[in-house]
């Protein structure tokens, strides 16, 4: 999604208010939980749906 929007992690962090570290951890899939408010702000900035950034792997 970031590549599609030609956006860097740092810019996303600035615009969502989520730290670069937390976004990096989110990218690695190692977070315990994601708040709805965080998901909302990321989707708002990236103009996408939660399903575009979340993926279930078996």
């Amino acid at each position: 999604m970031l590549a599609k929007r030609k956006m860097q992690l740092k810019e996303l962090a600035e615009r969502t208010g989520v730290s670069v570290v937390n976004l990096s951890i989110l990218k690695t899939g190692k977070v315990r939980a994601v708040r709805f408010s965080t998901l909302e702000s990321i989707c708002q900035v990236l103009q996408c749906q939660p399903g575009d950034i979340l993926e279930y792997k078996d």
Partner: protein
Amino acid sequence: MQKRTFKHFIAILFIAAFVILTSGKMLALYILAGFNVALLTFNLLVRKSLAFKPWFLSKFNIFSANFSREFEVEIPADLAFDKILEVVAESGFKLARADKDKLEILAISTTSWKSWGENIYFKIEENAGQTLVRFDSAAIFGMYTWGKNEDNYSVFFEKLEDSFTI
């Protein structure tokens, strides 16, 4: 409750030997007070240096009670370093030094009228795909901390766990 350690044993031996050798003379009290002031001053001067980490954590330093724990985090070491820096600030500790090359952090717990605060050291290591964090909390001057070192660990670890919910 803090366990009796090798340090406590040495401290009691040290004090007992001093009392016996000086046989309760007034001069002994002055020497002891002077020694304590000198040691406290030295520790306060060097506390913000990572180079003196071995001094504060040495098992032979009977005047600095310390506490250690090691735990694993499921993120790469460089990310863990940045994460710990974030959590240190959220835990109310003051960052004193951070060395990204050595993956070492030194923070200081809150000081108050009844405490000099403790030195808190973090060392991050990557070993066989695992990221291990070593936490050390050491008193600046005190053979016993009444659980403050353990409290520092509890506060930090709780904040770290919470921080994985973003």
